[in-house]
Structures are given as C-alpha cells and as structure tokens.
C-alpha cells in the first residue's frame, strides 16, 4: 500500500470526521439510554458501522424488540449498499478479494459520496480509499464510545438529542427524492405506514410498507414506460469496458447520491450488454 495515497485518503476524510464525531456521540448517548454498555456500543460501531441501522436498532431495543426483527430491519435498510458496492466494484480489480473485503466492510453513504467526488483517486488505488474509510470509522467508534461513557452525565432530553435520530432519517429520506414520482411514493409509503402501524403490532409496518410501496412503484413505473412510444431507432448504449468505467458525465459531487446510484445501474447494464456484444 502506498503511504502517500493513504495520507491523501486520511485528509479527504476530515469533513466526514467532523460529522461522525457528534453523531457518533449522539448514538453513544442513545445506546446508553437503551441499556447498552460502552463496550457494547463500541463493538456495534466497530462491527456494524452503519449509522441509520444502528440508530434504528437502538430505537427498536428501546421498544423491547428482540434481535431477529432488528437484524431483518438492518438488512432492508442496508440493501442500498448493494448499488454502492456495485459502483465501487467498477474501479477495482476483482481478483484482490481480501482488500475488497476490507474496503467494502467500511463502506458508508458518506465515504462513498466522498470517494465518488474524485474517482480518479480511487481507481485501483486501495490505499486512498482505505485511508478515507479507516479514518471515518475510527471517528465513528470514538464518538460512540465517548457518548456512551459520558452519556450518563447528559440528560437524554437535552441538547435536542431526541431529535437527532428523526432529523437523520428525514434527511436521508429527502436525499432519496429526485423526482415527482418519488414524492408520490413517499406519500403512499408514509400514509400506509401509519395505517399498518395502527393495525399491526410490533415493527411489521416497516417491512409491509416497503413491500407495498415498492410494488406500487414498480407498477406505476411500468405504466409510465408502456405509455411512452417506443422508438425503433434508439441506438443501443455503447459498451463500457472496465478501464473506462467513469465517463465524464458519471458521478458528479453535486448530484444526489441516489442519482449516482441510478447511473451506476445504467453503467452495469452497459457493461452487461457490452460483454454480450451488441449486433
């Protein structure tokens, strides 16, 4: 591993550190409120390292839920990493599995966003991405343990801590909205979640809502697709090779993360057809 690349990555992580320390502390405080020890909070940040699902786990523990539904909810929340992992996989040699295992274990929304803001720095340069991610991870663990240790000194009702979790989720929700279609899905999902929570016990409303609203999303999408006239002259997307995985219009730091994910899907489709060869 190149030492210079590593340092470069550490520097790039500093904005993430500024954010991870206080939110990690908020996690530690909440974890303590939910009865976790500082060790348990630290281990969760070390092994799981996924902000939204860690906060959700704390929320569910506070409501007395068992480990199994929490793991299922975590799985669904983190399914979004499938597409981020797919995008990152474009930039690395697939034969270096051990390095990729370490890098993907530390993949978060924020480190992904920073990595994608300058893709020339990550292409086959594991040192840079490792520096970026390990620095963010250490900040997250430090914040969590600090919050858990000193959480007893702070009332969980003060400093707006009860709203840290809702604000995080509201923001992540806003990041997902990129057109009117998504706004509609948000409305449908929001209303049906209220209805499901009112009717069903426990946390089943999350999974029921996800299945119903995505089903409606797919249905609406197919309606929109089929109502558009198909042009037989549309040229096939050009094949994208491994080396040219990042055309100039691919990930731009200004765009929403979800927009980048969609583009990643298109790149994958392009690779798929490129390998088959268009004739």
């Amino acid at each position, binding site marked *: 591993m190149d030492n210079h690349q590593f340092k470069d990555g550490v520097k790039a992580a500093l904005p993430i550190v500024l954010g991870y320390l206080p939110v990690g502390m908020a996690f530690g405080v909440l974890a303590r409120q939910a009865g976790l020890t500082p060790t348990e909070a630290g281990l969760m940040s070390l092994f799981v390292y996924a902000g939204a699902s860690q906060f959700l786990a704390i929320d569910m523990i506070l409501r007395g839920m068992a480990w199994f539904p929490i793991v299922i909810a975590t799985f669904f929340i983190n399914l979004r990493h*499938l597409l981020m992992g797919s995008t990152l996989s474009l930039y690395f040699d697939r034969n270096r599995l051990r390095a990729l295992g370490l890098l993907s274990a530390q993949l978060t929304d924020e480190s992904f966003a920073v990595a994608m803001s300058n893709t020339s720095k990550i292409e086959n340069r594991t040192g840079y991405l490792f520096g970026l991610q390990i620095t963010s991870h250490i900040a997250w663990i430090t914040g969590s343990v600090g919050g858990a240790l000193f959480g007893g000194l702070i009332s969980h009702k003060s400093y707006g801590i009860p709203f840290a979790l809702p604000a995080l989720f509201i923001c992540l929700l806003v990041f997902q909205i990129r057109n009117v279609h998504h706004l509609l899905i948000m409305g449908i999902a929001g209303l049906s979640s209220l209805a499901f929570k009112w009717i069903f016990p426990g946390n089943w409303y999350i999974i029921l809502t996800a299945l119903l609203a995505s089903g409606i999303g797919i249905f609406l999408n197919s309606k929109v697709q089929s109502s558009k006239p198909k042009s037989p002259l549309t040229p096939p997307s050009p094949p994208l090779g491994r080396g040219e995985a990042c055309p100039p219009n691919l990930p731009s730091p200004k765009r929403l993360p979800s927009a980048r994910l969609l583009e990643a899907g298109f790149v994958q489709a392009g690779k798929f057809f490129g390998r088959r060869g268009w004739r």
Partner: protein
Amino acid sequence: MRLEMLILILGMALVTFLPRFLPMVFLTRWTLPERVKKGLEYFPISILSAIVFPILFFNGEGRMEIQPYHLLSSAPVFLFAWKVKSLWGSVILGMLIYWGLSLLLGH
C-alpha cells in the same frame, strides 16, 4: 457482554457486510433482473418514509397522537436537507431547533 447483544451485533454486522461485499464478488459475473433492480430502487424511500411518518404521528407508547415538537422541527430540517444536501448539517440543525423549542415552550 450479554449473549443476546452479541448475537444482535454479529447478526447486524453480517447483514450489513453482505450487501456491501457481494456486488464486489458477483457483479462482474451476472446482473440483477430489471424488475428486481426497479424494486430495490424504491426500497430505501419506502423504508425511510415508514420510519419518519410514524415518528411524527405516534407517541412513544405506540398510540396515534400528533407530535408537535417533532412536526415543528422536521419542516426546517426537510427544507435544509433539500436545499443544502448536508446530512450532518441537517442533524445538527434539527437538534438545535428541537432543543430551542423545548427551552422556549418547556418540555
């Protein structure tokens, strides 16, 4: 360290690691069917809506009841997140507004 907490942490770690890692292994070998991809596209927004809306309209005991503090704090966070697109900025802003409201109105 309680056993159930250990199981929880390892279980969460596993289901978090797999979606992060598996694309690295398999994606160069096969692709998801288009319908599955479309469904995955709507999962995050549906799940997040299902988390956010009940927070605003249910109380801690799980009964339906408007949460005025949460509702008042969520509007500026929504706008800030929309305009500035900063996760941490939104969190800090939301906490400050909620804190201010509870200091002003008493909670």
